[in-house]
């Protein structure tokens, strides 16, 4: 299989408490975003953080896995929505740790029933490479809900 390489850069000025950085999507150019420590651990005030970027990565990775699993089961989705909440906490003696990633997935998949959708979500969790990585050190939970289509 091909190796896919993606790169991001950050330039940081000053100390961690008073300084700030700008993180850039170097491969795609899709974003250029300011980050500070205060907005990372306190009120975001419109700024992203490493944990928010992880949430976006996990949600995106999961949604593609779920779409693949539903298609494999013969019930390709029309539309999927995935929300990811990453929690970081201070752990005694270890410092700040990412302790949890909570995925909530819902969608419309003609032909799938609730059990089939839940099964695809479980398989997506097993298959998403980022879920596998996070599970080594954090709790990953998946809540899946098939949307009823009103005729």
């Amino acid at each position: 299989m091909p190796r896919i390489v993606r790169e991001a850069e950050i330039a940081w000025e000053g100390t961690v408490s008073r300084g700030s950085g700008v993180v850039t999507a170097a491969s795609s150019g899709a974003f250029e975003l300011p980050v500070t420590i205060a907005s990372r651990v306190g009120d975001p005030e419109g700024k992203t953080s490493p944990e928010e970027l992880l949430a976006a990565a996990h949600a995106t990775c999961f949604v593609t896995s779920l779409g693949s699993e539903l298609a494999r089961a013969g019930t390709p989705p029309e539309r999927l929505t995935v929300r990811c909440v990453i929690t970081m906490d201070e752990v005694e003696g270890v410092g700040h740790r990412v302790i949890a990633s909570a995925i909530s997935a819902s969608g419309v998949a003609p032909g799938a029933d609730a059990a089939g959708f839940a099964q695809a979500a479980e398989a997506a969790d097993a298959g998403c490479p980022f879920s596998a990585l996070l599970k080594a050190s954090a709790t990953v939970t998946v809540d899946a809900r098939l949307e009823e289509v009103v005729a």
Partner: protein
Amino acid sequence: MTTRTANVTWSGSLLEGAGRIEDVGSGAFGPLDVTWTSRTEEPGGRTSPEELIAAAHASCFSMALSHGLAQAGSPPERLETSATVTFVPGTGITAIALTVRGSVPGLDEDGFREAAEAAKVGCPVSKALASVPEITLDAGLL
């Protein structure tokens, strides 16, 4: 305790469909389009989970290094960090390469490398990604 949220949607099949990072809790970015083709071939201006992981890791590492240097009495003037994530479909994320160049008054190369090594081990994103088979660090002064 800190929580951060992202919302993503997908329409259609994996290969022909398209996804979108609709919004994030901070409001800092989105919507950003994502597709399987732009994830695995040329990005064409679109981000991907791997690029977002690279951004998370580079920014977390830089904050940890800045903090460590300041704690040791030699706060940095400037740090330039890049993170490169390698993804092999079917296998997963196989490697992350961190490169950092710093301007740190009063610190020599060895001291900088030592602080960078500590940041690589200690930053929360490094810990979350500790099961990546290979995480490398190239550190030096500007």
